[in-house]
């Protein structure tokens, strides 16, 4: 079996040399300091995983990854950066749609593990790509949208945009949201990070573990880069929209996430692309555990 290809981009050559040493034995490693060259490689070769720096003189990493998305959709995208600025992390979700947002300095074992996981997922994505007719012809259930946000503007936009096609549930609180998620599959979740006093990050993380098809849009005025990075890695949120968000933007993203849901649902191989990293915060682990317990009980009861 031929080695999978890993493409590394960083404006600091020493980073490239160093990373190459972690991977050269297991992968076909391509590396460059020039994003344009990286784009060319993506066009010419089958690249399984791209790992890019964020801050580079000629192009931001999130921009490069956005181009990578179009050029080679099956390639898994990872950002590796020393700067944790909010704009970059927002762009990496919304534009780059990254699989992981990793920080420098990195842990060698962790990076190896993430790249290995990504490479395997990419391989099955390539397989799907070459066999486009593997799409499942599923019965068209009415998609379900769950709103976890007290903001009426959000609820109104969701109703106005998807009301005719979807069942819409507006969670009254975190408990209600968990009950809804436990009882049925939800296509799209539109959530703030705080629901009243409850930080609902763990709910998003848990639901993505259980139901990778669910697409999460976070709309919030809360801006904390480290929490956003956690949500990228551990909840694979697909959009992060800072409040105040215009109805137009929210509506557009709702449409595209609903579309994404249908695509992912019909192509189970694509679900793996949104595999989440384990929850890291100890408190959230406990909360997620409780939620899982509740969910297990409820689902068992329903299936009986």
């Amino acid at each position: 079996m031929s080695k999978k290809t890993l493409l590394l981009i960083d404006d600091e050559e020493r980073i490239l040399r160093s990373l190459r040493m972690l991977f050269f034995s297991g992968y076909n490693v391509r590396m460059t300091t020039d994003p344009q060259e990286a784009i060319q490689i993506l066009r010419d070769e089958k690249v399984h995983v791209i790992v890019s720096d964020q801050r580079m003189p000629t192009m931001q990493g999130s921009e490069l990854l956005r181009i990578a998305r179009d050029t080679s959709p099956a390639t898994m995208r990872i950002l590796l950066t020393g700067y944790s600025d909010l704009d970059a992390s927002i762009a990496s979700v919304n534009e780059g749609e990254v699989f992981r947002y990793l920080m420098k300095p990195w842990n060698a074992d962790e990076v190896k593990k993430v790249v290995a996981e990504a490479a395997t997922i990419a391989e099955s994505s390539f397989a799907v790509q070459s066999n486009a007719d593997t799409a499942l012809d599923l019965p068209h259930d009415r998609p379900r949208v769950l709103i976890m946000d007290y903001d009426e503007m959000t609820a109104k936009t969701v109703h106005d945009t998807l009301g005719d096609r979807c069942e819409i549930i507006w969670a009254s609180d975190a408990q209600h949201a968990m009950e809804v998620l436990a009882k049925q599959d939800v296509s799209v979740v539109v959530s703030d990070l705080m629901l009243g006093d409850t930080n609902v990050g763990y709910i998003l993380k848990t639901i993505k573990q259980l139901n990778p098809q669910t697409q999460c849009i976070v709309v919030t005025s809360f801006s904390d880069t480290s929490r956003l990075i956690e949500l990228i890695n551990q909840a694979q949120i697909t959009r992060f929209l800072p409040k105040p968000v215009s109805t137009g933007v929210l509506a557009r993203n709702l449409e595209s996430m609903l579309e994404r849901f249908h695509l992912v649902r019909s192509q189970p191989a694509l679900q793996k692309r949104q595999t989440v990293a384990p929850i890291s915060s100890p408190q959230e682990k406990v909360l997620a555990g409780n939620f899982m317990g509740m969910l297990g009980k409820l689902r068992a009861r329903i299936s009986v």
Partner: protein
Amino acid sequence: MHVVNEVGMSESKQVVVEMLSLVNPVESVSPDCALEDVAEYFSDPKYSKLLSLPVVENGMPIGVLSRYRFMDIYLKRYARELYGKKPIRNFINQSPLLVELEQPLAEAAQHVSANMSFPLTEDFIVTRRGRYLGVGFVMDLLKAMEQKMRANTDELETAYTQLKSSQMALVQSEKMASLGQMVAGVAHEINTPLGYVQNNVSIGQELFLQIQTMLAEYESLVDKLLNDQSSEEQITTQMQVVAEMRGDVNTQEMLGEMHVLMTDSLYGIEQISELVLNLKNFSRMDAAATDVVNVNDCIESALNIGRNVLKNKVEVVKHLGDLPLISCAPSQLNQVFLNLFTNAAQAMEDQGVLTIRSWSDEEAVNISVADNGKGIPQENLMRIFDPFFTTKPVGEGTGLGLSISHQIIQQHGGEIRADSHVGEGTCFYIKLPVRVVASAQVTPALPEMEGSNPKEMVYE
């Protein structure tokens, strides 16, 4: 008391309570009361404090009759006979001083003092929605007003003190914010060399373990070769193990690359040291607060620290002339320059050029910092040094950066000004007097900074 309960309107409650304390709910007199009977009232102890009697018809005050007026009439010859039986309606002042219960104290006091007559012969009447409520004494009203004014003054003083301390807090927070930004910037910059140094070391460690194993196998082979008792088979097996290891291309390649990685790591460590040194130079935590320095060094130090903001975005062009040493507070000048550089970077939306010049004449060291960013509109240009003036969204800037820079330059006896053209860019000019003739030894603090910590000095 009945009155108090009835007047319980929330928004004007405070006003009502104030006014109510001034009301003497004395019984009013009917306009049909005979003049001679009024004498009784005036001598009644209940009315002894009153200057005038309130005259009320159907609940509405229609006038007052003062002791003064009464005496005036009654002391006339035959007055008692002539007027005694007449109703007082004919003698009252029909435009008494009227105050509504819900009228603010200050407004009431203003009305009364504007309309009262001298000498003071009448009290004022307090009404509630036009109906008679009681009588108030002018002196009481004025006294209450004075008390209130005094309380207001105290309030103002407290507010002023609070404002002053919150400004100090803001100045402090601006200092902390710019410090925080700077530290965060440098911390992030350290992450890159730290990333590869750490990775290289962990690769080295792994490789070292492999080499250890390899050595052990080689040693074992040598031992077996030297040992007469080793069987041919044992030696062959061990030779195969060693040959396999030698054939492992990965280890070979790693060994070959390791030298480069070590060189890289040393370079990275040097980078990290330099960044830390920049931080130290910039903050000058371990140096004297005032020193004799070359301002070009301050510019360089601020550029080093601001590098992460400027990097990839701003081309820096330096024309730094020969400068005499001047006595100043270098950490403060560093702060001024960093502030100007980061402002310039923020003013440039895409790529831009930052041109820094320095030159000197006999009196002063001059510095100019020019950007080709979006420029500042004329109406804002006049206000850029004002405290709290900012065009950034709420929460993104305190609006104190340039105001503090202005203070710092003033403390140095210098000047700072700005020229700007919208769409072309902005240029800041700084002039610092060469007060102290350059000398090798460290001169004492600047006169206006004498005896105090200049860092605190600036903000007072």
